[in-house]
């Protein structure tokens, strides 16, 4: 049994420990613009978080490290791609550090929680990756922007492309989470609208990678094609298992770009020839991309990828807004209007925003050749997400 007089000492001790924690790291005297970077710096998506950060900082550096004459102060939080910790983490940046702009993140579940917080508190949010439709759908708000994509865009473009290639039947297979579900739904929407038939929509819980029994089923169903969304290590394994199960030669595999982006090293021979759709790719023949790649390589010593581009465009978008109000970010309406109407010169090509603050850009068709996702055409030019459910 506890001795009663311990209670106070214990509670006091605990409370003291809490209060001793580092309070807000800085109480800035100069009016710096506080940017909160809430991205994965540990976990499966570490490299994505790092590349987005690099891209973002490169864009700011190109503006001389200042926006509208004000310096930028960064606050970083590792979101661990853990939705359970998302409200806590976002809260730290918004309430404790009182950031002006929140930038994040990769994982859709975390980003949804951030969008919710941003909507509640009015903090400006720029989403540099997560493709969940809801962020610029029901959760849309004047202060929420996205510079990446929605899952709908690449899925829809691939649905159209598959029809052009004469496919009649398909099976879809993805992880059972919003990003995957939205991707295959968009594919189905376009594919069936044009007369195709999706035989079966299969999904396994994220982040499981035991594909074997599903592959057996695909073989039994014998569709003309398979449309799959997986990413990262899961995509590496999936593409290899798909080939090992003997399916690749008979039933071609298609997917959004994430299926083969940043994964070709591991996928090797198994990935060759796979067609994917995405808003970026290798061998884009435009000057901005060449300049960006050179600058990025110089600054960080590594090749940029699609995530670096998205981080870079997030920086560009923020710059467009803050420059327009000459650093006076308290002029919210003007700031937001400037961001809404920004016409960015992105490495991916021209980039504007839709009414729901989602990027409007080309979706390219890419083919895996060696270690590259070669752009072989435009699957859908200037494709805009329909922004379903957004009332703004």
């Amino acid at each position: 049994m506890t001795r009663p007089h311990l209670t106070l000492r214990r509670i006091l001790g605990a409370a003291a420990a809490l209060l001793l924690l580092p309070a807000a790291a800085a109480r800035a005297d100069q009016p710096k613009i506080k940017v909160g970077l809430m991205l994965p710096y540990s976990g499966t998506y570490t490299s994505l978080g790092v590349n987005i950060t690099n891209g973002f900082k490169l864009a700011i550096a190109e503006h001389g490290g200042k926006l509208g004459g004000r310096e930028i102060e960064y606050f970083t939080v590792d979101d661990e791609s853990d939705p359970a910790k998302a409200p806590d983490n976002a809260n730290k940046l918004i309430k404790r550090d009182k950031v002006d702009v929140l930038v994040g993140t990769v994982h859709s579940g975390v980003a949804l929680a951030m969008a919710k917080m941003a909507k509640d508190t009015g903090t400006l949010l720029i989403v540099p990756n997560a493709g969940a439709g809801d962020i610029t759908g029901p959760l849309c708000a004047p202060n929420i922007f996205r510079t990446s994509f929605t899952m709908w865009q690449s899925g829809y473009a691939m649905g159209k492309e598959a029809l052009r290639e004469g496919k009649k039947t398909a099976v879809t297979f993805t992880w059972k989470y919003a990003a995957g579900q939205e991707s295959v739904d968009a594919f189905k929407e376009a594919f069936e609208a044009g007369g195709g038939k999706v035989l079966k929509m299969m999904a396994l819980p994220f982040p499981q990678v035991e594909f074997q029994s599903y592959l057996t089923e695909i073989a039994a169903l014998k569709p003309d094609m398979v449309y799959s969304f997986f990413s990262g290590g899961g995509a590496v394994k999936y593409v290899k298992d798909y080939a090992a199960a003997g399916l690749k030669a008979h039933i071609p595999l298609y997917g959004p770009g994430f299926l083969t982006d940043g994964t070709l090293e591991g996928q090797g021979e198994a990935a060759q020839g796979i067609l994917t759709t995405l808003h970026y790719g290798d061998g884009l023949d435009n000057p901005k991309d060449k300049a960006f790649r050179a600058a990025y390589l110089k600054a960080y010593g590594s090749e940029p990828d699609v995530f670096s581009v998205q981080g870079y465009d997030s920086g560009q978008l923020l710059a467009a807004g803050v420059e327009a109000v000459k650093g006076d970010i308290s002029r919210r309406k003007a700031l937001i209007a400037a961001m809404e109407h920004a016409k960015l010169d992105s490495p991916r090509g021209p980039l504007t925003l839709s009414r729901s603050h989602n990027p409007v850009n080309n979706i390219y068709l890419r083919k895996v050749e060696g270690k590259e996702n070669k752009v072989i055409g435009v699957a859908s030019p200037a494709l805009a997400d329909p922004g379903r459910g957004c009332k703004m």
Partner: protein
Amino acid sequence: MDFYSLLIQLLNAVQYGLLLFLVASGLTLIFGIMGIINLAHGSFYMIGAYLAFSLASLTGSLLWAVLLGTVLAVALGLFLEWALFSRFYRREHLEQVLLTYGLILVFEELRSLILGNDVHGVAVPAALSASIPLTDTLSYPVYRLFMSGVCLVLAGGLYLLIQRTRVGMMIRAGSSNREMVQSLGLNINLVYRLVFALGVALAALAGMIAAPASSVYPGMGTQVLIICFVVVVIGGIGSVWGALLAALLIGLVDTFGKVFLPSISGLLVYLLMAVILLWRPEGLVKRT
């Protein structure tokens, strides 16, 4: 469903079940003999898989990786038993839970520090990388047959150990009774240490041979741990043969659940457990 798909799904189920058995047998042995509830058992599976990954990239051969990895796993088991677990045989289960919970955090974070958090593939050895074609679209990867084979060999070894040795007598008696063990003329401390190391090695070995088929990824240990608990609950606590039976049953339910009831396939294994709890609260195989 045609004959060949059925056959392949059956092979998938058996392969998954055998792998589960390998992990769960270590858990049930350690519990049955030493009375230790080890939440960190799944971590040994994870450690095995990551050992296979890093040793295979160092040595360039999965075989060497598995051999070296097994030695390391045994060493880890001996060390942990000596440093920590030997102090906990007479402590409450709650404290064992706390200890092994702390171990999970440490193992996971060390893994993250040393090897990062990426999902990694492990190459299937060239000799085993082929697939056996069954129909024009259906084929079965040789490596998966190999996995089942290894699991069967290990299960056979376990059978011999349990049926033919004095340590095995103790395991069959399911005894944590020190006097009885000593009356068999065994050095109790040594036996405990070896059985613990054996349990660790079985889990790690399962992780190693599973690595090429399942990839290595953070959190793989806890997933397998919870399923192993279900195996032990269904099979009967401390019973190795119950574990085998339960693991195969779970393999079947899980695999065919994915085919026939995909929307609730994740739940089926737990529903199976609930039914068994009602029907036989002590598990399928009761220890006598």
